[in-house]
């Protein structure tokens, strides 16, 4: 396995949904080169998509001039991804439970719930510029005999 130790990745994008593809592709490359399993890559990628979608939609209100910053740190057995937006911030306590019967048929409100299922830790804080800073963490199980040559 190629070690991911000490790798850092930092990405700044304008607030357009299509930029989610780039963020996922880039982080996926780093995870694959680091020998993460297909499954780990899939679920981390989905959590990341939800996080960046929220930053674009609810944080930056889709203003393409506003930026989303993604900082990923790859330790040997853990990945941490930090997502910052330029929005007004929000209180995660106020988020409703998508499993409550009255919410089951709603068209939205499942993003954060999915993130918590896919990752080991999901933390919201207020970012340095007043926007939302979200941290996603997941422990990685090394693939012992991963052949990541192409």
């Amino acid at each position, binding site marked *: 396995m190629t070690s991911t130790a000490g790798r850092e990745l930092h990405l700044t994008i304008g607030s357009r949904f299509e930029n989610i593809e780039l963020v996922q592709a880039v982080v996926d490359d780093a995870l694959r080169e680091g020998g993460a399993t297909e499954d780990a890559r*899939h679920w981390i*990628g989905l959590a990341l998509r*939800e996080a960046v979608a929220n930053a674009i*939609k609810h944080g930056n209100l889709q203003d393409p001039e506003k930026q989303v910053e993604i900082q990923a740190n790859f330790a040997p057995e853990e990945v941490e991804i930090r997502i910052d937006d330029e929005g007004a911030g929000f209180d995660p306590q106020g988020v409703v439970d998508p*499993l409550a019967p009255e919410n089951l*048929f709603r*068209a939205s409100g*499942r993003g954060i719930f*999915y993130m918590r299922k896919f990752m080991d830790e999901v933390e919201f804080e207020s970012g340095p510029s007043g926007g939302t800073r979200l941290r996603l963490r997941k422990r990685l199980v090394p693939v012992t005999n991963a052949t990541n040559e192409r």
Partner: protein
Amino acid sequence: MKITKREKNGVTILEVEGKVTIGKGDVVLREAVLQAIGEGPAKLLINLGEVTTIDSSGVGELVSAYTTVTNRGGKLKLVNMPPKVSDILQITQLITVFEVFETEDEAVQSF
């Protein structure tokens, strides 16, 4: 993302391919569903076999499609769900809301 529409024994089948995700795939799915069901009660079957990624917006569109079709007295069912898509619906307890089939023939006969 691509959607192909077919008919089989009076059931409209939408074959969905690619990413059902925010900003593009979700919108395309919504439009395809609205266009497929028309005004009256519809028999709609969505084939998810070629879906590679679905996010919470895509899931939201499936739920919206379900309520729209059901409210008009129609039926919406799902077929050919890849394991990772099925996981996604399971996690938010939607798998029990939808009628899900393994094969298209079974699904079509059930309407």
